[in-house]
């Protein structure tokens, strides 16, 4: 018993020490402070966080950056650290699982500064968590539901109707017909692939292989894409110069502004050289398989399913290609990588096994990078839909991407944060 008393006495002492700690001693830095919180070991999160840090400091701000171990559910201490350093904004580019707890903890602690993140926060999970918060929650994304311009409007109404028509599709979307940005990106990626396949059919006819498709993608151009014109630069990334900024306000994402930054890349003029033989066209049963390499289970399952929906909707609108006068049915093969890098090679090999000419995906940079070599070995081009880490396309000639990159997204959010808090 006397040991218990001794320990409880010690705890009381710690309490007393804490109480007398003077609350006023926070260091008042003259600069605008941003608190950045990223998940240890998560490529996407740290990539975005580092880019935000460099961009924000370039604009004259000060950044405090910390990481938390995977599977953390209590973020109060991190939010408290941000408050102690009188941060004006918190940038936390993490998964929706993390975000739901982080936002609730920030609400508990009575935070006033806005919370910002990248494209992963553009989901219904964030809308639920942000309900009734008295601080703003912003995220950058590729697409906005109520963007009035041309094809976006048409896509939104069509996609909503399609979701409401098929109940299982609606369940996959999280039980509502809110159009997620990744669905729009999936839709565009499928259409870019179709443009490339048709271009390859022009040049090589029924003797075309996945290599011809890859070459066609290099110089492909999609004018009226939902997320803006899509053309690829030297490394295979879509040339993007703007991102949509949205705010989560009582149950829906409100369009805030289009944040523009300069992008000097020029589109690829000549196709790359490819050594592999590639996969031949399935002339026997007149079928073109497009692989859909996505997480439909695991931590990123929700985002992955929404991406698959975009591709499936696009497939429902346009699924026949005539090559040398013969109609080929375009079929999708969905392979689940379970959001785990160790499944990447097996899931990618399953697509290669199906003889697909092109693969679309994946949600999550880690699994995309892990599958890059499998696709290139089979000579199969792949189009990243929402993986924003630079490593996906760098050094992988077969990997292209229709979304913007971390450095771009980090920079855009840094300039947006600077404009909203520093003025």
């Amino acid at each position, binding site marked *: 018993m006397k*040991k*218990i008393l001794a*320990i409880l006495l010690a*705890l009381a002492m*710690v*309490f007393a*020490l*804490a*109480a007398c*700690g*003077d*609350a006023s*001693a*926070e260091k008042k830095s003259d600069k605008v402070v941003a608190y950045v919180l990223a998940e*240890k070991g998560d490529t996407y999160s740290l990539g975005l966080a580092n880019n935000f840090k460099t961009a924000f400091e370039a604009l004259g701000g000060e950044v405090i950056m*910390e*990481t*938390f*171990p995977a*599977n*953390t*559910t*209590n973020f*109060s*201490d*991190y939010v*408290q*650290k941000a408050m*102690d350093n009188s941060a004006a904004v918190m940038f936390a580019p993490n998964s*929706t*699982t*993390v975000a*739901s*707890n982080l936002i*609730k*903890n920030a*609400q*508990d*602690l*009575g935070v006033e500064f806005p919370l910002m993140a990248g494209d992963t926060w553009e989901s219904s*999970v964030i809308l*639920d*968590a942000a309900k009734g918060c008295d601080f703003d929650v912003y995220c950058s994304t590729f697409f906005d539901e109520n963007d009035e311009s041309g094809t976006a409007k048409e896509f939104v109404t069509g996609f909503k109707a399609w979701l409401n028509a098929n109940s299982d599709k609606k369940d996959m979307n999280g039980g509502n017909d809110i159009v997620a940005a990744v669905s729009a990106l999936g839709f565009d990626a499928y259409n870019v692939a179709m443009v490339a396949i048709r271009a390859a059919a022009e040049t090589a006819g029924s003797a075309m292989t996945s290599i011809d498709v890859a070459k066609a993608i290099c110089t492909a151009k999609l004018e009226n894409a939902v997320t803006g014109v899509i053309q690829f630069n030297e490394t295979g990334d879509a040339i993007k110069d703007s991102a949509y900024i949205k705010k989560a306000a009582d149950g829906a994402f409100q369009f805030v502004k289009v944040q523009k930054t300069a992008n000097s890349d020029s589109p690829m003029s000549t196709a790359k050289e490819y050594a592999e033989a590639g996969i031949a066209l399935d002339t026997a049963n007149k079928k073109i398989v497009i692989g859909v390499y996505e997480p439909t*289970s*695991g*931590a990123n*399952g*929700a985002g992955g399913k929404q991406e698959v929906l975009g591709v499936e909707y696009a497939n429902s609108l346009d699924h026949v290609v005539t090559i040398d006068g013969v109609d080929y049915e375009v079929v999708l093969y969905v392979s689940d990588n379970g*959001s785990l890098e160790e499944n990447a090679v097996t899931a990618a090999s399953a697509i290669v096994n199906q003889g697909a000419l092109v693969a679309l995906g994946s949600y999550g940079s880690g699994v995309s990078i892990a599958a890059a070599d499998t696709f290139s070995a089979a000579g199969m081009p792949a189009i990243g839909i929402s993986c924003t880490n630079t490593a996906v396309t760098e050094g992988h000639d077969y990997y292209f991407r229709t979304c913007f990159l971390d450095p771009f997204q980090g920079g855009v959010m840094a300039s947006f944060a600077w404009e909203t808090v520093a003025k």
Partner: protein
Amino acid sequence: MNIMPYVIRGLATGGQFALVAIGYTMVYGILKLINFAHGDMFMVSGIMLIYMAGSTGAMPIFASIIIMVILTVILGYLIEKCAYAPLRTAPRMSSMISAIGVSYLLQNLVSYITGGLSKQYPEIPGLSTSVRFLGVKDKLSVFVSPVVAIVLMVVLVLVINHTKFGMSMRAVSKDFETSQLMGIKINRVISITFAIGAFLAAVGSLLYFSKNTGINHLAGSTPGIKAFIAAVVGGIGSIPGAVVGALIIGLVESLAKAFGLADFSDVISFALLIIILVFKPTGIFGEKVIDKV
């Protein structure tokens, strides 16, 4: 730098882990078995409440809390009966593998049911309201957790030291065979120990998840391991040790974050575990055990 908020939240996590740690210590004291599945039972009770009273369920909150506690106790009882009782005479490694198996089963089952997505814990009328105390604004459950943990500890210590059943528990933990000879119904004592452990885990999950409301199938693994480290730090087998160990772990982690060691917070608790295991394996409250030739 005002460390009061970190201290309070450290004690809060400590209190929540303590209730799980007591379960570990009691089971280890009796069966000399690390109940790997204990952390996952904690998570399952959280998920159960979601399916009863959360967005997907529609039952009134109080009724579902009571049912959740009962179901968790039944789950604890079933785990003991199905996974550990048949292996009582088996070599130690088999029961340990069975414990890992149960933990794996619970995690994968919940992942299959929830599809791996994290679900929101329902509002608990009392605990989820946020309140300001000692200059720190947070949910009521944060301030209540350490108190509940210490109160339950005192109750349990009294039960163990002053009731007939408590004596039989102590006897069984000291020597398995002889207590059987003395007519103590071993299986009953073990089942009740698991039931108490499950009850405490249910209370702990109520406090823990009302604060950290996003739960997925892995939500039980970190608290489970931290609670076990607490049980070892406090001295495995001693209930006050488990509570004190948990409070210490909670404090150490929060203060580490306060002083900018956030990157290392997970590494610190495991390093603490290895240091304690090596230099004082019996922990703060444990007693030395000499195994004779």
